[in-house]
């Protein structure tokens, strides 16, 4: 059974939604539709629907929608998760996760869901939030602590802790994979000097009030401890994915 979860902001995409639903019907991709605005507890919803036989959960929305649903799905036990596939139908802006999975727009998404090409992707955690793509923080005042050493970006810039790379990176010869149980710390200074370190876990502190942005959706105050989990979600992807 398919479960389609529509985000709150989709009212302004009525035409796209109508076209999407026609296309889904043509492909016989039917299922239950729920609207996030009507849901008080998404975790309970996901658990109930899985217990009722949902095998494919489809987020209709953007990175923020995916983030909310991934946080609910990730609380499901690992054994049940193996039987669940997670699809994405991107609508509107802020869709880097869908793009990384090779789903460029809502028009091609139904065919991709129908083809059901599955990639099992690692899930990371930032304090009590799960996330799938990356955590970002401005380097100003930021220190990263890993095991017995610390990293101090002395010339400012941007810091990204990457699981699923959302776009092609300039250090393209370095492998980023959301399947290797490794997080990749990527630091680019204002002078464009690049640093790169693989890790399983890192704690971020900041003395300038900068916040950590995860999945380009949720801002968190530091300190934030980020780690890769022994937990995967089966994403439905296309051949055009980034990994």
């Amino acid at each position, binding site marked *: 059974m398919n479960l389609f979860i529509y985000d709150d902001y989709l009212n302004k995409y009525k035409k796209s939604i109508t076209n999407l639903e026609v296309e889904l019907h043509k492909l016989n991709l039917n299922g239950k539709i729920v609207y996030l605005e009507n849901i008080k507890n998404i975790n309970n919803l996901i658990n109930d629907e899985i217990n009722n036989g949902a095998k494919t959960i489809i987020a209709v929305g953007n990175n923020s929608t995916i983030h909310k649903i991934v946080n609910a799905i990730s609380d499901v036990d690992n054994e049940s998760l193996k039987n669940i596939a997670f699809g994405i139908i991107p609508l509107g802006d802020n869709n880097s996760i869908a793009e990384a999975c090779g789903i460029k727009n809502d028009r091609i998404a139904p065919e991709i869901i129908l083809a059901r090409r599955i990639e099992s992707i690692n899930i990371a955690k930032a304090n009590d939030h799960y996330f799938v793509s990356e955590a970002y923080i401005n380097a100003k005042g930021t220190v990263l602590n890993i*095991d*017995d*050493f*610390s*990293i*101090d*970006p*002395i*010339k*400012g*810039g941007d810091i990204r802790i990457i699981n699923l790379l959302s776009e092609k990176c300039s*250090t393209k*010869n*370095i492998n980023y994979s959301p399947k290797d149980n490794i997080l990749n710390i990527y*630091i680019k*200074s*204002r*002078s464009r*000097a*690049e*640093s*790169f*370190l*693989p890790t399983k876990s890192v704690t971020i502190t900041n003395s300038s009030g900068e916040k950590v942005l995860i999945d380009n959706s949720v801002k968190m105050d530091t300190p934030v401890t980020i780690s890769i989990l022994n937990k995967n979600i089966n994403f439905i992807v296309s051949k055009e994915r980034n990994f």
Partner: protein
Amino acid sequence: MFKKGNQNEVFSDVETIIGESIKVKGDFNGNGNIVIDGILEGSLKTKSNIFVGEKAKISGSLEASEIIINGDINGNLLVKTYLSVGSTATITGDIECAQISVEKGAKINGKIKMLNNLTNVSKKLETTNDSEEKSE
């Protein structure tokens, strides 16, 4: 193996890059090749190779299979196979290695001990690693 002086050519083999813009403090252990262009205050060990760029400043010891140095290091070096000291390098510390080459202009202040065969160096590296694992 690193190609001397050309970081870009070895980029695809590199596990870790400590860029010009960052300072690393503490003890850093790796498995793959490591490029250092920034500041390192502490020890660094890897089973693979280390490339130290011209702008790098290191206060601490390095241990690796092969090391190429073009920057400043204030600490001891233990090199399993081959140490290359470039013309811009300044080393203040003792060196133990199996093979070495030193370019004109390089500065070395310390003792250099050549180990007769690779086995001796390998054993020394293994002993160091074992004692660390036990202490953990």
